[in-house]
């Protein structure tokens, strides 16, 4: 585990840190919007991972020159991961917007966006259901 190894793989370390941060936020935070933020951080770490894969040492931006003549000596970075990440970013945006729309609706129905209070409300509903329908099945054992 030399310094060379650590700094050579810096992008992977950062990717791991961000990924775990994002996952931790999703799990540990009870506010629904914060969960979406955590999900975003998690997805951003993946973008970073892909894009850092595409970097070629000494490579420049993978864009053709204006006159279309390609100089064979110029090294370009790999454009494919960039393209994949554009797709993934769009997917991330769609997911975030859908999540936020769901949170708006949840706020309308439950009057709260804290997971604990929503769980409380749902447990009350479930208990009421079990009381009502449990009796018809013969009650507790």
């Amino acid at each position, binding site marked *: 585990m030399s310094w060379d190894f650590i700094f050579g793989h810096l992008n992977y370390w950062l990717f791991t840190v961000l*990924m775990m941060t994002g*996952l931790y936020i*999703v799990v540990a935070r009870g506010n*629904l919007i914060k*969960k979406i933020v955590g*999900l975003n951080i*998690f*997805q951003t770490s*993946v973008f970073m*991972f*892909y894009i850092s*894969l595409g970097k070629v040492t000494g490579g420049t931006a993978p864009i053709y020159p204006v006159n279309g003549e390609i100089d064979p000596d110029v090294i370009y970075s790999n454009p*494919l*991961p960039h393209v*994949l990440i554009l*797709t*993934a970013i769009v*997917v991330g945006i*769609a*997911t975030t917007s*859908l*999540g936020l729309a*769901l*949170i708006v*609706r*949840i706020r309308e*129905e*439950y009057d709260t966006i804290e997971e604990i209070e*929503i769980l409380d409300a*749902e447990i009350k*509903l479930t208990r009421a*259901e*079990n009381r*009502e*329908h*449990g*009796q*018809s*099945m013969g009650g507790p054992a």
Partner: protein
Amino acid sequence: MSVETTSQVAMTLGDHLPVLQILVPFMAAPLIVLIGARRLAWPIAFAASAVAFLIAIKLLLQVIDGGAISYHLGGWAPPVGIEYRVDAANAFVLLLVSAIGTIVLPYALTSVKSEIPARQHCLFYAMYLLSLSGLLGVVVTGDAFNVFVFLEISSLSTYVLVSMGAKRDKRALTAAYNYLIMGTIGATFFVIGIGFLYAGTGTLNMADIAHYISANGADRTIQTAFAFVVVGIGLKVAVYPLHLWLPNAYTYAPSAVSAFLAATATKVAIYVLMRFMFTVFQPDFLFQTEALKFLLIPLAVLAMFAASLIAVFQNDLKRMLAYSSVAQIGYILLGIGLLSQTGLTAAIIHLFNHGITKAALFMGAGALVYRTGSSFYGPIQGMGQRMPFTSFAIVIAGISLIGIPGTAGFISKWVLVQGALEKGWWPIAMLVVLSSLLAVIYVWRVIETLYFKAPKSDVQVRDVSLTMLVPLWVLALATIWFGIDTELTLSAATRAAQGLFFGFGIGN
């Protein structure tokens, strides 16, 4: 032998079938929203779905006759271009998904009117078609990242579909939200796996990755990729510890959505799992990762027993069916975990048979909800007398769920036990039989509730209309048909297993 399409040869409509398979429902979805007329929403959806079904039949016939079809999207040649590859496994799952997508729509026509507010109907059918096209796309593509794209298309529209049950029960919203969080984590794990695969092999085309792995073996990067892919897809499959989204999503979703999802969403994810495990990371690599034997099979057995036990104690019919789905997915995973061709055949047959069985059961449950307003065992007591056709269809599908000889469920459990005995693992075979006994308990609870209890006196209902009964009975009779005439499913599944096992380019 594969049919190559090049950009020089003039192509007929028949050559474009693989891409039309997804394009027809995909383009019809925004069409419904743009036209905006509620009366036209269902006809357009049904037409697009029926066309997709016909295309799937045509593709299956082409594959059976001629071998795998390779279609180059946009004329760009793989491995740089995206390739759609249809072989026996693909075509079989395409048939299942498009068939269920079409059969559920007449049922949805009636049930959606009562479960979803009128101003959302156009959006509902658009989301339905998007989900269908996403699922079809996952199955038909031969490019690893394309799988992720279509997986997310289908997942996002599924989250919307689940949330549309909010009129009946507001818990549909939190169910959809939890499904969104967990599903996105799963898909992101999957894409991390794809990233590692790309880093390790330099290509995204599944056939190309398979060639690289068979030539160069699997180094640490590719093993990591395998781990991420399996966990990510496992969450979509609802492998036992990762199944938490499923019960709430299936219970609170609209009835048509539950029926559609139960038969297709997890099955498509299982197909992706099989494709990646057996074709991309080949069987040699899998045998080396013996960890699979100690991971997949214990989890599968755990699912079979734990989920079945939980299902026994449910008060709600739809929630019971949801936990039963988790258990049945355990059977399929057991078939995959056997890592043999018979095991894989059993998994594919059970994928198909469970799909049609669960769709029939959820449609029956939805019919009960439509008339009585609730799916709990209390309000649906005695519906065997008031709603005889619905109840009898539920009984038939329930018998298939247990796996009684003469029904489709028996065939898949038979092949599964055969696969286990081939490997000499008779304890596994015993466990399969024992967990089927648990299924007897929870199916019998339903039958007892419907037939052997008196209906609540203040309930005067009659049976549902034909638009709901015909799809229900088509699927219920299909479970009997495919249990007696096993030619189609058994031969298709055997060829599919061969195709998966021997990979791209070798055999069919």
